[in-house]
């Protein structure tokens, strides 16, 4: 499945809703095969709208969307939805069957696959999201986190090469959030699936995203690796967001207290390294345990 080149891109896409809200203005967006891309923006900035144009649920008034190099309009339904999969923000929108197994089977059955193939896909998809044991359960008896995973499995069963997720961690507690992010990371690295996610939570992104698109009011403010995005704190503030807390701390130390930090770190690990450089060795006590968590 690993391929080179551009998986999906938009060129100069603009979209206005009927009442006249300009939700997207001249958006250039690109995801290469195998990348992990994040759209980062505050509420109402047009993430969902952009995502919907990427899967042809909305037709932009201006600009083009290309999937795997081809104009999106030229795809047949079956072709498009085996290439691009979308996981909605609210799992209830997406899970419409009564049981988990049935819901995951919906996509493959629509593709007209044989029953053994369908069963295989259900098994694989549920395994991939660590939800194999839920197969026979009724949807309305699942917890919110489980519903989220089942929703992802339903899309994975279509075997898309591009997986798009709208706020996959919204409403989840820290454990659930970490679980979903690691899951996506695994899908991305092990199965080579291109992952695009929309979010407004900043703390976990630097760990996972290859590139970030920073949106605000329907425009792309900046695009690049986490390091480039988060080095400009004014830009981040302009987008009504904040730095990850760890970066915030070291940025404050740097700006307000004059602690010399060249490169504001983005993750816990980086911050530790930076701080250790500054703290004299003689202050350190023998580490109690040399465990690596």
């Amino acid at each position, binding site marked *: 499945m690993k391929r080179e080149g551009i998986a999906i891109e938009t060129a100069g896409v603009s979209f206005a809703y009927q009442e006249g809200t300009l939700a997207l203005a001249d958006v250039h967006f690109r995801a290469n095969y195998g990348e992990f891309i994040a759209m980062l923006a505050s509420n109402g900035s047009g993430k969902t709208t952009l995502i919907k144009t990427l*899967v042809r*649920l909305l037709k932009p008034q201006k600009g083009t969307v290309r999937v795997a190099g081809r104009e999106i309009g030229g795809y047949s*339904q*079956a072709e498009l*939805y085996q290439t691009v*999969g*979308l996981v*909605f923000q*609210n799992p*209830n*929108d*997406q*899970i*419409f*069957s*009564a*049981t988990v197994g*049935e819901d995951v*089977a*919906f*996509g493959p*059955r*629509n*593709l007209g696959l044989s*029953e053994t193939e*369908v069963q295989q896909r259900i098994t694989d998809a549920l395994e991939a999201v660590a939800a194999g044991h839920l197969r026979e*359960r*009724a*949807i*309305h*008896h699942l917890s919110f986190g489980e519903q989220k995973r089942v929703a992802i499995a*339903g*899309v994975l069963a*279509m075997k898309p090469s591009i997986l798009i997720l709208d706020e996959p961690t919204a409403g989840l507690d820290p454990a659930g959030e970490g679980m979903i992010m690691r899951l996506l990371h695994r899908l991305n690295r092990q199965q080579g699936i291109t992952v695009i996610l929309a979010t407004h939570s900043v703390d976990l992104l630097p760990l996972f995203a290859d590139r970030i698109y920073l949106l605000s009011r329907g425009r792309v403010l900046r695009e690049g690796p986490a390091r480039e995005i988060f080095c400009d704190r004014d830009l981040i503030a302009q987008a009504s967001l904040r730095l990850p807390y760890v970066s915030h701390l070291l940025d404050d130390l740097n700006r307000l207290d004059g602690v010399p930090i060249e490169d504001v770190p983005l993750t816990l690990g980086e911050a530790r390294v930076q701080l250790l450089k500054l703290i004299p060795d003689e202050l350190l006590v023998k580490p109690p345990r040399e465990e690596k968590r």
Partner: protein
Amino acid sequence: MFSLFSDFFACRDNLLSRVDPRAKLVVATAMILCVILSTNPALPFLVFLTCVAATLALRIPARLVALRLVAPMGIVVALALLQSFMAGGTPVCTIPIGPWRFTATHEGIRTAVLTASRVCGAVSVVLLLSLVTPAHRIFHSLRWFRVPQGWVEIAMLMYRYTFQLLDLTADLTAAQQLRMGYAGVRRSLASMGTVCGTVIIRSVDQAVHTHEAMVLRGYQREIPFGPMPPVTACACGGTALTVAALLLLYVAIGRVG
């Protein structure tokens, strides 16, 4: 009412919930038919006792069973009274209340007891069926019995989203209640109208979202149904035996009296 609407027990694993839903449907239908056709109250009462005993044996709380039986029982009592006093025939006793004289007749009481027994029997069968078979299995079986596709599709969607809309309704009602929306009849009605309207608007929005999600997974006008597993010889034989036994019972006692 909201709390009553729960299929939690149907999803539990037990002896009866493991039985092929098609077999259960056939047997349940046969039982209800026997009950309805029976002219002897003994058979319906027997069915009633069996079903209630089975329900309790599956460790379903007696309170729940009782709650679900209350509504039909109320009707039974009302109708039984009506029939006892309305049918003509041999008077059994007369109770004067106010300006009227209540005359219960022998025939009337007989009909009343029969009707009551039928209601009890039939309701308990449905109750047991619903407590050991999740609705989605029933729908699948109905599809297998060649009930039209459109009907089953709508049924499954309705079933799935009923739970969600029930939650919404509960929240809306609670939010209104906490702001005194149910103080007095006028306010209650206005509040309730609002809830109904909101639920409908929400359902329309949800329909749009659901449809989008379905399209993205290749929906083409019909929800595909997976094949039901083939009927096992065991289920087949079991069904045949049970139905035969029922028939025997019916012939033996159902037609007497």
